C-alpha cells in the first residue's frame, strides 16, 4: 500500500525539507516504520519510548483521527493521505 504522508514543519529536517513524502504500509504502524527506514530518526519524534503515539501528536488517515479509529493499527488503504500534526494548536 502506497500512501502520502504530510510532514509538519518541525519534522521536515528529517525529510530534507519536503512537506509531503510517499511511504508504504498496510497500517499506520507499518507506515511509520517505513518512514523511519527512509528518514532515520523520524519515528522517535512521533512515537514515545513505549512505541505509542506521543500525546501531543495527532495523526489522521484521510479525514479520520486515528485516536477515534484503531490507533497505530488503523488501516492505511492504497492512495490514502496520512497527516501528522502537532496537537497543541488551537483554543484558549
Amino acid at each position, binding site marked *: 500500500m502506497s500512501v502520502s504522508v504530510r510532514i*509538519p514543519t*518541525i519534522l521536515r529536517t528529517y525529510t530534507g525539507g519536503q512537506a509531503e513524502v510517499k511511504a508504504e504500509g498496510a497500517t499506520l504502524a507499518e507506515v511509520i516504520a517505513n518512514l523511519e527506514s527512509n528518514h532515520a530518526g523520524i519515528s522517535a*519524534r512521533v512515537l514515545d519510548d513505549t512505541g505509542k503515539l506521543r500525546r*501531543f*501528536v495527532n495523526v489522521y488517515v484521510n479525514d479520520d483521527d486515528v485516536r477515534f479509529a484503531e490507533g497505530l493499527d488503523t488501516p492505511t488503504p492504497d492512495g490514502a493521505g496520512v497527516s501528522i500534526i502537532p496537537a*497543541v*494548536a*488551537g483554543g*484558549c
Partner: protein
Amino acid sequence: MATPTITEHDTTAPAAFGPAAALSCRECGERFPLGPVFACEICFGPLEVAYELPTGDPEALRRRIEAGPANIWRYAPLLPVPADVASKPNLNPGWTKLVKADNLARELGVTGGLHIKDDSGNPTHSFKDRVVAIALEAARTFGYTTLSCSSTGNLAGAVGAAAARAGLRSCVFIPHDLEAGKVVMAAVYGGELVGIEGTYDDVNRFCSELIGDPLGEGWGFVNVNLRPYYGEGSKTLAYEICEQLGWKLPDQIVVPIASGSQLTKIDKGLKELIALGLVEDKPYKIFGAQATGCSPVSAAYKAGHDVVRPVKPDTIAKSLAIGNPADGPYVLDIARRTGGAVEDVSDAEVVDAIKLLARTEGIFAETAGGVTVGVLRKLLSEGKLDPAAETVVLNTGDGLKTLDAVAPTTGLSATIRPNLDSFREAGLA
C-alpha cells in the same frame, strides 16, 4: 512556510518581547529562542513563554502597575510585549469589572464572598481580546501581514477587530454551523471569514496544515504559530482579579475549559504574583468547568486519568466545544495540585444558570458563563466548593453572542391591548 530564522529572533527578542527570555517546552523543558513556533521539536509538547521577571521592591512594582492604563497594558512589565505597547494601535482590552455578586451568593448559600469576573466588557465582548492583543504584538514583530485563527466564534471577532485596528488583513476560519450572532460579529470587521464543513477540531486541523503550506506564508495564526504569546494574555485575568480584590489571592476560582489554556495561564499568573511578592502567598483552588456534551477533561478528572481522551462535541456551549483539548493534561495537574476539581453540567443546566446569573446580578452571560455558574452551583451542592471561602467565577463572554441558547425559554410575559383593564387582567400589576 517561510518564517524568520532563529538568528532574527535573537536580534529582535530583547526589545520586542519585554521580560520574555525564551520559549520553553511544558512537556520536556527544552528551551528555544523566541520565535513563531508553538510545538517542541523534541516531543511535540506545547511551548510557553519563559521570563526573566522584574526583581526588586514589590511595592514599587505595584505602584507602577496601578499608575498604568486601565487595560491589560498596565501589566506590560509581566507580558511578552515591548515597553511602548500601549502606544501602538490595538483594542486595549481588559480591566473589566469584578462584580460582587451578593444576590447570587445569597441564592446559592455562599457566605465567603462571591465575585463574577465579567469579561463581556471587552471590546468585542469576550476575553479573547486579551489573548489576541498579545498575539498581535508578536505578529507585528515577526512581520506577518495577515492575522488568522481557528475559532469557535469569539476569537474570530476578536481577530477581525484587532486586525482592523492594526491595519492588517485578517482571514479566519470557523465551523460552518456557528451561532448566527457570532458569524455577524466576526464578519462585520471586513476581513475574510471562512466556514469549514466540520467541527472546531476539523477547523483546527485545517489551520495546522495551512500553516505548513506555502498558502499560509506570511500568516500569523494567533492560536497556532503565535500560540505561546497569545496564551499569555489570559494571565491578565489573574492579575486583574488579584488587584481588584486589593492585591489578594482569591480562595477559589471557577474557570471554563475549552482547550484548557486559559485555566493554565490563570494559574501561571497567580504563581507569578506570588513570586514577585505582589500578593501574599496562600493556598488557592482552581476549578474547571465544562459542558457535559463536550467534557473530555471532566471525564478524565473523574476517572483519575492523567491523559484526556478526545470526544466529538455536542453542546450548545460552542465556545467551549473543543473535543481534543490541547492543554487538558495540564488542567488535570492544576486541579489536583491546588485541591480543586473539574465538573460538567448539561445544556439545560447551562441555560438555567445563564438565567440565574441574569436574574440575580443583571449580567447576561454567553453559554460559557452558564457553564461556569452552573458548575459553581453543582460543586456547591456536591460539597466540593467551600461556601465560606472567597470565590471568583469567570464569565468570558456576552450573552448577546448566544441568544439562540436562551431564546426558546425566554420571551414576553404577556401580550395585552394598550389599556389598563387589559394589563390588570394579565395579572402583572
